[in-house]
């Protein structure tokens, strides 16, 4: 009997650093199991051989920053049964979305010797601003266990376990000592989506907010407290806390705007 055809997996890159795709290659031990479970049909970071679409599952990394990419993503949607965005760029516009609040031409003039060759959009936008997305996986980069969970869930046709509660829950479940309370270090954990396993607090650093806003984030209360006496963080620093990889995620964007000195 012929075995049922394996689902076809494609990985697509838009404006990004490749870190999220690397998380998949990083799976090492599990990579063979992935290759057993799905046919890796399009993954140019890993192999030049490409199997033609359509694809059952498309993982999309990166944000849309050029007119050409804005068209290419439509094609990805057309040939994909399920589209899952991976990482902060694809789900929130990424660090490059800092341009959204400034004049992008000014940036290109500072960065490139020949800015006249740069053809880019005014804004960096998440994939969901262009096409219907079936699932968004957060993180900068995504966590490899969560990535495997999403693929496993897709294969089993179930909902992935990637809870939108705060990093603090992972932190407390690990029995870590809260750096905010015990060291006075500002930590974005209480407003940030879980997924990393409280990586930074485990190394006694405050959370940087790589996974973007949690469900119902109270960013205003968080900033008010950080700006108050016990921590004494100045408004400029607060604004910067919210303007990193998820700067264009709405709750973070609103907060950094509100704090800008």
């Amino acid at each position, binding site marked *: 009997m012929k075995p049922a055809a394996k689902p076809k997996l494609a990985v697509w890159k838009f404006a990004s650093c490749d870190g999220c795709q690397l998380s998949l290659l990083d799976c090492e031990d599990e990579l063979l199991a992935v290759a057993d479970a799905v046919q890796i049909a399009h993954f140019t970071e890993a192999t030049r051989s490409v199997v033609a679409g359509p694809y059952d599952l498309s993982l999309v990394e990166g944000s849309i920053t050029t007119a050409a990419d804005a068209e290419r993503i439509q094609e990805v949607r057309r040939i994909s049964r399920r589209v899952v965005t991976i990482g902060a760029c694809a789900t929130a516009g990424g660090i490059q979305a800092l341009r959204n609040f400034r004049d992008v031409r000014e940036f290109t003039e500072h960065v490139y010797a020949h800015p006249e060759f740069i053809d880019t959009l005014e804004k960096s936008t998440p994939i969901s601003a262009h096409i219907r997305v079936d699932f968004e996986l957060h993180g900068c980069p995504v966590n490899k266990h969560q990535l495997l969970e999403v693929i496993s869930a897709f294969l089993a046709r179930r909902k992935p376990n990637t809870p939108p509660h705060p990093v603090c829950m992972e932190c407390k479940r690990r029995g870590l000592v809260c750096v905010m309370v015990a060291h006075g270090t500002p930590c974005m954990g*209480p407003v940030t989506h879980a997924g990393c396993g409280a990586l930074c607090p485990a190394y006694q650093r405050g959370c940087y907010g790589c996974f973007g806003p949690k469900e119902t984030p109270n960013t205003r209360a*968080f900033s008010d407290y950080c700006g108050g006496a016990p921590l004494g963080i100045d408004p400029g620093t607060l604004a910067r806390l919210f303007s990193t990889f998820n700067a264009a995620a709405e709750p973070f964007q609103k907060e950094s705007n509100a704090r800008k000195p």
Partner: protein
Amino acid sequence: MASPPHTTLETNAPPGSGSAMERLQCILEREDFPRLITVLQEQGFEVIGPTVRDGAIVYERLETAKDLPEGWTDAQEAGQYRLNKRQDHALFGYAVGPHSWKQFLFPANSRLLSLHRDGNGFTVETPAEPAPRYAFIGVRSCELRAIAIQDKVFLGSGAVDRTYAERREPLFIVALQCGVAGGTCFCVSMQAGPRAETGFDLALTEVLEETRHYFVVQTGSDRGAQILAALPHRAAFPEEIQAARRITDHTARTMGREMPKADIPALLKANYDHARWDAVAERCLTCANCTLACPTCFCSTVEDVTDLTGNHAERWRKWDSCFTLSFSSVAGGITRASAKSRYRQWLTHKLATWHDQFGSSGCVGCGRCITWCPVGIDITEEVRALTQTAPPTPPAPG
């Protein structure tokens, strides 16, 4: 758990002492203290107790008495915790820290089941590893009360929770009569401390005098008496017992906080729409730290996961919190979407409906939710605000 009086000790009992517990007081010198840990280890216990890690006093496995936070103390306020050096060499000169014993009896993550596809069916496997046999050292009165509350939840409410029961049943408890009240402690106003009277195998009061450092030891069970018998000890003199008493009396007088005296269940139930809930919701991050740090909060969620092959599945239980949206998610939607409704649910369950469900308050006054709230929301202050501004409630029955 009370043991019959130990004869040799009884003959040495100081005249005029009160309860059976008091008749069983002995002295363990500081230099003999390390033996307590060794003897427990020899009896096959994994000894857990306080130790310094990452700028706080946490509960972890102890190898020797050297792992204890000798000479350390803590300063605690709402949303703040700092380790400080003491002027002396006290082993237990601090209040409770970020951890509670619940993480050992009710682990934050536990695998309940594994399933393996096998032909047309599947096999179910429950975890086979034997549960650890713990001995806890330094359990405070409030924490004993918290363990008693969780006993009721996990063992005494119909269904027995196996994970909890397996750890709880062999547990050996060395209590500590608190010598220091933390800045956020309020056990006195919850009638939960600072003196432990029951629920332990042994209880220690650490006494530091100019030239002496010793422990007054009370036995609370036969097992406790047996362990004590294996340690160098002698009966306590009345002045030593009095010294120990003075220590907990002093702790009781120096509580950092107080829960307002009021019929709190009636107050909360009569004030679901009080404006204070909106005010606290403005500040609350719904981060769940209070619930996960609380030694009595017992909520969990269950996660089912499958692997890439689809041939293996696991069911995990994880600590959950009434501060998440998924907690109140049912068919048709989320019933506690606002931060206000989530904070109110927490406080009202803890202090009011807990009485209806389990016959006591759900709060033991340990202060963890106050200290470890990253924005310093204070349960006693919230209740005080309600008592001061709420319309009067009918007097408590009795």
